[in-house]
């Protein structure tokens, strides 16, 4: 590993402007983490034009990254105090966090969550620091066949293991794939679905779509959902957890960090999935599972460590091979494109300042978050009282101005608003825009890589299986598809009591919780 580049990264981060951007990023992240509704992907969408206009692209990316992992801290606060998950990734924290708050141990829950978050994130950054360059060194072995397989896996995973209804997610993903075909075909320059419009010839701009679906869509949806109900947060006392609490929580923090790190790297994974998996794991290893839901400290420590670890480790696929693992990473992908950097294997060599600058900013950002998250709880809770009727027009205005500045195109504003309305209707009918956006990004990559592969293979598709990396990915895809089918067949053969497997109820629970 190139230690010099790594250390130079710290030089980049400790420049006053970058420190400031990092601070602003994590503060905004924590703030929107507190606000139920506005998620990190939406906020990054709204603030994306800042990347375009910043003097130094590195600063902008540092800030946007800060929003993502900062949101993981903020989301906990409302989960514990108000029983409202501020973020999708803090849904499971509600169960035990709020129970603890009712017992007057809100401070303990928040303290453990902050410590767990910091630990999980730090473990993950160290993993990223050590593993990132190794993955990047193999990245040149990633040719078109590998990209095609990886993109397919990403679309499949995001649609099947994400939160919410699988069928609806698959539908959304398919629409995303279809949208990706619009524009001039880059192999034959034939026009597809352009309706003779010169504007559509270069395809629908991904940034504009994402800003519409996440940004405008969320704003519209929130406007309807939150009628300014007064929130009465629980009182906080004694933030520092006792030694007994810490002893009880530390194995959970360790397990959560581990689970989070690995689930974050997977395409389609990320903070939400990691927190769910960590909660399930804690429940399974606990001696007395019945404590969960009634204020088990592990039920807060595990998921909170996991979602931070995952938020960090999902930078690995983006920064090393240029594949966004989840919707928020897709926004960061867009931000990199906006500043003229193509994320991919060349990044670590061509822009070490950016690669290491962003990674090292996370060490510092998490330290800031640990120090700030507890004292600022009171202030953040007050912000919840800002009425959406005031917040929404401001964010809408920022979004519209922002999208115009990217391409100086009025056409883009209308495209964004159209997708905003689509996003709103999707949320209303229970479709998540996440799979659609990710499928849209990965769709063109999947198609062009597949066609490139077929040209390289001279028309023989067996090459996908015989190349080691793409072969392994394909095997994994088969596993992902086959596993539920096998399970289903197995279940049909062995009659179990229908109440023991609450499969259907999971979905509705999560959907209600997820913004």
């Amino acid at each position, binding site marked *: 590993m190139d230690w010099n580049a790594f250390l130079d990264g710290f030089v980049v981060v400790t420049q006053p402007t970058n420190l400031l951007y990092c601070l602003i990023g994590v503060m905004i992240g924590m703030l929107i983490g507190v606000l139920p509704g506005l998620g990190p992907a939406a906020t990054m969408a709204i603030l994306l034009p800042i990347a375009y206009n910043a003097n130094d692209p590195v600063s902008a990316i540092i800030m946007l990254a800060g929003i993502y992992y900062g949101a993981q801290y903020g989301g906990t606060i409302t989960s514990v105090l108000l029983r409202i998950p501020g973020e999708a990734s803090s849904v499971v924290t509600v169960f035990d966090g709020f129970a603890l708050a009712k017992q007057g141990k809100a401070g303990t829950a928040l303290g453990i969550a902050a410590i767990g978050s910091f630990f999980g994130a730090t473990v993950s950054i160290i993993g990223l620091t050590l593993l990132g360059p190794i993955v990047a060194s193999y*990245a*040149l072995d990633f*040719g078109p066949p590998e990209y095609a397989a990886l993109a397919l896996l990403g679309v499949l995973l995001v649609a099947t293991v994400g939160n919410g209804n699988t069928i609806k997610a698959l539908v959304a993903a398919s629409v995303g794939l279809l949208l990706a075909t619009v524009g001039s075909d880059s192999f*034959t*320059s034939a026009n597809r679905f352009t309706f003779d419009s010169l504007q559509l*010839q*270069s*395809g629908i701009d991904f940034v504009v779509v994402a800003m519409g679906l996440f940004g405008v869509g969320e704003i519209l949806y929130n406007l309807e959902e939150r009628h300014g109900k007064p929130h009465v947060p629980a009182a906080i006392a004694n933030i520092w957890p006792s030694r007994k609490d810490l002893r009880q929580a530390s194995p959970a923090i360790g397990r959560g960090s581990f689970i989070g790190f690995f689930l974050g790297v997977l395409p389609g994974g990320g903070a939400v999935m990691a927190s769910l998996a960590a909660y399930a794991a804690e429940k399974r290893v606990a001696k007395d599972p019945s404590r969960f839901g009634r204020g088990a400290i592990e039920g807060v420590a595990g998921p909170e460590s996991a979602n931070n670890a995952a938020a960090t480790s999902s930078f690995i696929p983006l920064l090393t091979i240029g594949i966004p693992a989840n919707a928020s990473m897709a926004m960061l992908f867009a931000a990199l494109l906006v500043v003229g950097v193509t994320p991919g294997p060349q990044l670590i060599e061509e822009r070490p300042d950016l690669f290491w600058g962003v990674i090292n900013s996370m060490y510092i950002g998490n330290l800031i978050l640990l120090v700030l998250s507890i004292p600022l709880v009171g202030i953040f809770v007050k912000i919840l009282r800002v009425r959406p009727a005031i917040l929404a027009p401001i964010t809408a205005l920022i979004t519209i101005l922002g999208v115009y500045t990217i391409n100086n195109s009025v056409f883009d504003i209308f495209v964004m608003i159209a997708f905003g309305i689509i996003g709103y209707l999707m949320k209303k009918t229970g479709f998540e825009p996440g799979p659609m956006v990710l499928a849209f990004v990965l769709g063109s990559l999947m198609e062009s890589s597949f066609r490139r592969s077929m*040209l*390289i293979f001279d028309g023989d598709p067996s090459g996908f299986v015989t190349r080691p990396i793409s072969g392994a990915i394909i095997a994994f895809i088969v596993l992902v598809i086959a596993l539920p089918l096998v399970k289903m067949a197995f279940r049909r053969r062995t009659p179990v009591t229908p109440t023991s497997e609450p499969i259907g109820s999971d979905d509705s629970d999560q959907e209600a919780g997820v913004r």
Partner: protein
Amino acid sequence: MRKHLSLGAVATVAVVALTACGGVQNTAGGGSDSGEYPSGAVEMPVGASAGGSSDLISRQISQGLADELGGSFPVINREGANGALAAAEVAKAEPDGSTISVQNASLFAITPLAVSEDEVTSIDDFEVVQGVSRDDYVLVASKGSGFASVDDLAGATKKVTYGTTGVGTGAQLACALTFNVNDTPAEAIPFDGGAPALTALLGNQVDTACLQVGEAIENIEAGKIVPLSVFGPERVEFLPDVPTAQEQGLDVEVAQYRFMTVPKGTPQDVQDAIAEAMQATFETDEYKAFNEQNNLTPMEITGDEVVAQLEEDKQRYADLVEEYGIDLGDAS
């Protein structure tokens, strides 16, 4: 200032309206007396994303024009369709010097070979003001392919794959011609621009690729990829050891060059003002250093010479493509 401007505009409109039947087009907005140009901000659409050579050149020229003429010349990125979107915008802009653009030769000379009739951008919709610079293509081979010269290609035992920077680009044409003239079985693999094509080449995913010199030079100098040929009329200053295709007995000459355009019908004095300011910019040390740094060869010829060159290239490319039965529009 703003008030003064709008008063002027009102006055101009009034004059135009009064003299109704026209013939006084040159008194419109952008200013007619060369001493007056520019009378407001001049937009410079560029048909490429920020950071690429087209964008960098536009920005350098924009800076030069602002220094020489005063006023501001904001560059606006309008990427897509190999520059056709930006071109369309310039073509339909007011012909008064308020919209000008540095455009690529490939859009006019090569892209027509790849796209359907109604998508062709014609140079007749523009006035060409001044040539700018040339950006050469280079054929490079991956380390793993074992190719060290163009002659090795002819002796290839299996189909050779070549990465291109997209359909209808000079890179695709240069590579396609090389392999066809040489009668080597080959397959074009189009990528979205130079960077991904280079990455694939570095990873031995493709055997060869045609790239712009600026995109490839770092890795050539680092010895990670092997240059086989350049496609200009003479060797490239930045790669003195790499022979031209002509030297190696291949009748292939393809180059990318850029030039300043304004909408058809822009007054001559405005064109002259722009050309003079550009020539003054070319003389500055800053601009010369910029060319050096980006591996650009100056091609500071007059607008008429550019048009003549474009016509000649377009015809030559069309003939070559026909002779060797190459279909640029159908890479698969």
